[in-house]
Every structure is written in structure tokens, then in C-alpha cells.
């Protein structure tokens, strides 16, 4: 069959791969960003449940 | 001073990206307009192809307008406009940078995205290139003319509506030369360059006059 059509097939698979790669990349980057932000906050002893806790003393990690 | 202007540009682009920012609102509106027009005109491709540049340009004008009313109003509301007016840099340069930031999030994406939308209305490749080129040089005029309206209506409560009514007539020349340049590229009596150069001139004119007028409007607005 005409090789001209080859281009369309390759193009559509390429674009699909590109979009899926973008989705995967976005998921990974976003995950790392949020995890790092969370780690930074929890390192400073901010508890998830806002029990009144004298400031400065890190709370035991709950849950 | 350039540090101050660079900081302003970075701040505006950052704000556009954050939640509540204008983001790619202009681009989204542009895509929707171009998609909706054929529903009104019917799926007849050669009709759409003939009026393609007009559809894209009208969509560009409207897409620029909807993002403009928050250009200065957002700063006015939270008090950062005071900060901008006390900057070391003259207010005119501040307005140029804000207009440029708006153009980067609205005008530029429109011009880059126009060819793909041209597919929807069966534009020929030359027409797509022409429309994209005219949009690239024409949208600065739309942004800076609109900027004057945005500065005038910054302190008004329902400024957004008034803005469109104020500046749309001022945008007519840009629309005329933009569309005629795009049409000239796909055959026609006049050569492409003539309206295209006039369009560039309009943009440069708009950047100068728009900036000075917007700065004056901000100074005398309060």
C-alpha cells in the first residue's frame, strides 16, 4: 500500500505516545512536588489533627 | 530599574499560572469561539475556508477582551497598584510590562494555536501561516488598546462590561488590516505585505499611545 499512508499511522501513534508520556511525566512530577512539600511541613512538627500542642515539641506521627 | 520590571513580569506570569489566575483563559475562549462558529454557519467547508481568517481574527479580538478587565483591577482591589505606582520605574514602563505579560498569556498562544484551529475550518496551509503571522503582529495592538480601557475601568465595579464597549471601536482598524492581510495571502488583488506592514505600524502605534494613555488613566483614575 502507499507509503504515504505510513506517515499518518506513525504520526498518530507518535502523538498518542507523546500525550501519554506527558500525562505520566505530569503525574510523577506533581507527586514528587507534593511529597516534598508535605515532608517539609511535617518536618516542622505540624500535626495533621490540630490538637492544641505546645509549639515546638514535634507530635508523634499519628495514623 | 530593569530588575523591578523583570520582577513585575515574573510576578504577573506566576499569578496567571496560579489558581485564580487568568491562565490560558484567553486561549480557551479562542478555541471555543472558533469551534462554535461552524455550528452556526453549517459544516460547509469551502464556505468556512473563505471566511476562515475573519473567524479567527474576530475570535482573537474577543479572546483578548475577556482577559483584560482584570489587568489593573486585580491590583487595584488588593492594593498592589499603590506599590506599582510607587515603583522606581516610571508608570509607563510598568504598564508596558503588564501589557507584555498579558500578551504572553493571550496574544502569543492565540497566534501559535491558530493554524491548528485553521484545520477545523479547512484553511489552506498558506492561509494558516498568514493568519498566524497577522495574529502574531496584530495581537499586541489589541492588548495595548484594550489596556487603556482596563486602566480606565480599573476602579469601577462592573468595569469588564464597560471595557469591551469602550475599546472595541478602537480595535476596528487592527481587525480590518489583520483580516485583509490574511486574505491577501491566499490570492486577491492586493499584495500581502501592504496591509501586513500597516498592521505592524498599528501595533507599534498602539503600544506607544496605549501605554501613555493607560498610565495617565491610572494616575488620574483614583
Amino acid at each position, binding site marked *: 500500500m502507499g507509503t504515504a499512508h505510513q506517515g499518518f499511522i506513525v504520526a498518530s501513534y507518535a502523538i498518542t505516545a507523546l500525550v501519554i508520556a506527558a500525562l505520566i511525566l505530569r503525574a510523577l512530577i506533581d507527586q514528587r512536588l507534593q511529597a516534598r512539600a508535605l515532608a517539609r511541613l511535617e518536618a516542622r512538627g505540624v500535626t495533621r489533627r490540630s490538637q492544641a500542642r505546645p509549639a515546638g515539641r514535634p507530635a508523634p506521627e499519628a495514623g | 530599574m530593569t530588575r523591578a520590571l523583570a520582577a513585575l513580569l515574573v510576578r504577573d506570569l506566576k499569578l496567571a499560572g496560579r489558581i485564580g489566575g487568568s491562565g490560558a483563559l484567553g486561549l480557551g475562549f479562542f478555541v471555543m469561539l472558533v469551534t462554535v462558529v461552524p455550528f452556526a454557519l453549517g459544516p460547509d467547508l469551502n464556505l468556512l475556508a473563505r471566511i476562515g481568517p475573519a473567524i479567527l481574527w474576530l475570535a482573537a479580538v474577543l479572546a483578548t477582551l475577556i482577559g483584560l478587565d482584570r489587568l489593573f483591577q486585580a491590583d487595584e482591589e488588593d492594593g498592589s497598584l*499603590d506599590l506599582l505606582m*510607587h515603583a522606581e520605574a516610571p508608570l509607563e514602563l510598568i504598564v508596558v510590562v503588564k501589557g507584555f505579560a498579558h500578551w504572553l498569556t493571550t496574544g502569543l498562544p492565540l497566534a501559535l494555536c491558530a493554524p491548528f484551529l485553521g484545520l477545523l475550518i479547512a484553511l489552506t496551509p498558506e492561509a494558516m501561516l498568514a493568519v498566524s503571522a497577522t495574529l502574531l503582529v496584530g495581537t499586541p495592538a489589541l492588548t495595548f488598546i484594550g489596556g487603556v480601557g482596563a486602566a480606565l475601568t480599573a476602579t469601577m465595579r462592573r468595569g469588564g462590561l464597560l471595557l469591551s464597549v469602550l475599546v472595541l471601536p478602537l480595535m476596528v482598524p487592527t481587525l480590518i488590516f489583520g483580516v485583509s492581510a490574511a486574505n491577501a495571502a491566499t490570492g486577491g488583488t492586493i499584495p500581502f505585505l501592504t496591509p501586513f506592514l500597516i498592521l505592524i505600524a498599528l501595533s507599534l502605534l498602539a503600544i506607544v499611545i496605549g501605554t501613555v494613555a493607560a498610565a495617565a488613566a491610572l494616575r488620574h483614575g483614583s
Partner: protein
Amino acid sequence: MRIVADNLACRRSERLIFANLSFTLADGQALVVTGRNGAGKSSLLAILAARLRPEAGNVRVEGAGEAPLTELVNFVGHRDGLKSALTAEENLAFARAILGRAALTPKEALARVGLEHAARLPVAYLSAGQRRRVGLARLFVSARPVWLLDEPTSALDAASQEALGVAMRDHLAAGGLIIAATHAPLGLDGAATLRIERPVLAADAGEAA
């Protein structure tokens, strides 16, 4: 450096707020503007900040080279001038770049108001008092001589008000000028006070009677 205001008058929506108001302020001096709520304190500050056109009279700066008053002023008004989508640090970094004459870094300025931990928090998450303190931290990121403060102590707790008083005294000692509109006493001993009373003119007399 001296700020000279002579015969300032202000009219807003057809009402004369105040008239022939004059004062001069030299280095190291503070002016506290008092008056009933709505008596025109904020209008005076807006005129000084060039955000409002006076009905009559003018304000000029002497002895500071040709820099206009707007480039010498650090204005903290009712609205904090903070973008709530940006973090406290980003807001202060922007203010530092825009105001020029960079002084403290955003972190140091936040430390001065006791909010160094809030550096990375978006301002949207901060309370009114904390936003006020971030707004006031803007005074420390730039070495501009004139502080224009509109109700600086509003929404501040006692400790922050005390810290603000210390900062103001340091600023005056370093030769800076302060013009503050306020209700609460600022603890600035030796500060000139200016009370704004609504002038009762013949036209108003009829209306007021």
C-alpha cells in the same frame, strides 16, 4: 530632607473633607494624624501617596535631590497590597525589587515581624493579623526614608504593636520620616500630631443645623 505640605484641601464626591492644611516634616520626625473615622485621615495619606489629587495646595520634598515623593515613600495602606496567590516570601521579594533601595531580605523582614516560618505559605492561608504583619514587613525590605502608614496597628496583637513601635523608633533614629494615620496611640513620644476636623463652612452649616 523635608516634606512640606501647604494649604492642602481635599474634596471627595462633592464634600469638602478638609481645607488649608499645612505641615512640614524634617528628618527624624513623625507626624501622627488623628480624627474621627471618615474625617479624612486616609484621604490625606492618599494625597501624600499621590493616589488622590488634592482640591488645592500641594506637597513637595526639599533637599532630597530631584526624586519625587512617590519614589521616597513606603506606603502601607488599609489594603495590604499582597497577592493572596503568592507566598509571603514571593510578595516581599517582589516589593523589594519594585521599591528599590533593597534593605533586608524577605526572610529577614519576615523574622522582624515574627513570621519567618510563614515564608513559604501562600498569603491566602494567613489570618488578617498575619497579613497585616507581612504588609508591614514591606517597610523593612526597602530603605525608603518616608513611611506612610494608614492604621498600621489595626488587626495587630499587643506583641506586634510593641514590635512596630520599636521599628518606628529605630527608623526615626536613623533619620527617617513617618506619617501615620491612626486611632491607637503609637507610643511615639515627641511626635507632632495633626487632628483633622471637618471644616464647618457656611454651606455646610445650613445642612448640619
